C-alpha cells in the first residue's frame, strides 16, 4: 500500500534521526514535572486531574505532530513527495504516522499520569478506553491537517498551537467531560451523547481533511 510505504519511510527516517521521539519524550517529562511542582502538596479534585490530563496531551501533541509536514517543507522534499504520490496518499501516510505517534505518546502520558497523580482513578475503564481511542484519533486528524497548513507558512512553531486550539476545542471540551464521567463511574449509556459528539467530530474532520488537503498541498 502506497501510504503505508510512505509511513514506513517516515518511520525509518525517524529511527535514523530520532528528531521527534527525543524532543517529545523530554517535553512530556517536563510538562508533567511542571504541573507536579506547581501543585505541590495540595489536594486536587479527581475532576481537575481529568482536565489537566488533556492539557498535557494537547501541548505534547503541539510539540510533536507538526514534524510530519514541517520537516518535508523545510528540507525541500515536498516537491519530491508531489512527484511520487497523489495528495490523498501523502495525507494518509502522514496521518498514519501521526496516529501512531499520538497513541504512543498518550499511552506514555496515561501511564505516567496515573502513577504520579493519586487522585486520577478511573472507575469506568471501558468509557475511558473509548474516550482515549476516539479522542486521540480526532487529535491526530486535526493536528495533521493544521500541520500541513502551517508547514507552508512562516513562524511555524508559535503558529501551530494558535491555529490548532480553536479547532481542537470542541474535541477537548467533550473529552474532558467524558474523562470526568469515567472517573466518576458514570455508565456508558448516560455518556452516549458525548461519545457520539466525539465520533461525529472525527468523521467530519477526516472528510474535510481529504477534501481540503489538495488545496493546501498543491501550489
Amino acid at each position, binding site marked *: 500500500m502506497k501510504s503505508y510505504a510512505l509511513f514506513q519511510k517516515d518511520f525509518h527516517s525517524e529511527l535514523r534521526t530520532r528528531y521527534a521521539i527525543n524532543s517529545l519524550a523530554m517535553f512530556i517529562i517536563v510538562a508533567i514535572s511542571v504541573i507536579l511542582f506547581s501543585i505541590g502538596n495540595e489536594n486536587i479534585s479527581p475532576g481537575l486531574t481529568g482536565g489537566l490530563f488533556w492539557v498535557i496531551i494537547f501541548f505534547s501533541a503541539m510539540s510533536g505532530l507538526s514534524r510530519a509536514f514541517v520537516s518535508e517543507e523545510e528540507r525541500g522534499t515536498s516537491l519530491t513527495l508531489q512527484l511520487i504520490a497523489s495528495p490523498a496518499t501523502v495525507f494518509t501516510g502522514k496521518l498514519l504516522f501521526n496516529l501512531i505517534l499520538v497513541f504512543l505518546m498518550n499511552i506514555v502520558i496515561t501511564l505516567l499520569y496515573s502513577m504520579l497523580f493519586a487522585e486520577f482513578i478511573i472507575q469506568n475503564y471501558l468509557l475511558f478506553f473509548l474516550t482515549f481511542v476516539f479522542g486521540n484519533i480526532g487529535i491526530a486528524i486535526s493536528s495533521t*491537517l493544521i500541520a500541513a497548513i502551517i508547514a507552508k*507558512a*512562516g513562524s511555524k512553531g508559535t503558529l501551530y498551537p494558535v491555529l490548532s486550539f480553536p479547532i481542537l476545542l470542541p474535541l477537548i471540551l467533550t473529552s474532558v467531560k467524558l474523562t470526568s464521567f469515567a472517573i466518576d463511574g458514570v455508565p456508558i449509556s448516560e455518556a452516549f451523547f458525548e461519545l457520539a459528539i466525539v465520533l461525529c467530530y472525527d468523521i467530519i474532520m477526516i472528510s474535510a481533511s481529504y477534501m481540503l488537503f489538495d488545496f493546501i498541498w498543491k501550489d
Partner: protein
Amino acid sequence: MIWKIFLFLLLCFVSIAGIAFPIVQSPTKWYEFPFILGLEQNAKIIFFHVPTSWLTVIAFLMSTIFSIQYLRKKNLDDDAKSYAAAQLGIIFCILATVTGSVWSKFAWGSFWSWDPRQTSIFALLLIYGAWFALRSAIESEDKRATLSAVYSIIAFLTVPFFIFIMPRIMTGLHPGSADDTNAGPIVDFKMNFSMQLIFFLSMIGFTILYFWMWNLGYKSIILKEKINRQLTRG
C-alpha cells in the same frame, strides 16, 4: 447620501431609545418597556448585545463563503471581500464579548462564568485571531488567500459544535439554555410592542451599518493593492 443620514438617525434613535426608555412593571405609555422575569433592569443591553453577536456570526459566514468562492475561481477580489468581512467580524466579536460580560456581571454576578454561549463567543474570537495570525505569516498573496480560505472552512465546521451541541450538554446561565424554563425573551415574545420595535430597528440598523462598512472595506483593499502595484511598477 440620503441613506447615510437615514442610517445615522436610525442608529441614534435606537441608541437613545434603548438606553433612556424606562422599564416599568405594567407599561402604559408607548415608550415604556415591560418587566421581564430574569432580566429586569438589564434587559436594555439586548438592543446592543444581540445585534453584535448576530453580526459577528454573519461576518464569519460571509468570510467563509467568499473564501470558498476564492478556492473555486482564484480571483483575489474574493479574498479581499473575505478579509473585509473578517475585519468587521472580529470587531463585532469583541463588542459582543464585552457587552456580554457587562451584562453577565449585572445579571449573574461575575464577568465570566464559562457558560456555553460565552465559551462559544470566546472560541469565535480565538478563530478570528488565529486567522489573522495565519495571514500575517504568509508572504505570497496566492498562498495566503488559499491557506486562510482552507482554515476558514475548517473553523466553520467547528461552529455547529459550539452553537448547537455545547448548550445542550452543558447547563448554562444564558436565557434559552438547557435549564432555563423561561425560553428566552425573544422566543416567547415577552417584549411588548415598543420593545420589539426598538429591538428590530436596532438589528436592522446594525446590519445595514455592517454591510455598508464591508462594502467600503473590500473596495478600499482592492484599490490599495492597485495603487501599490502602480507604485512598484512605475
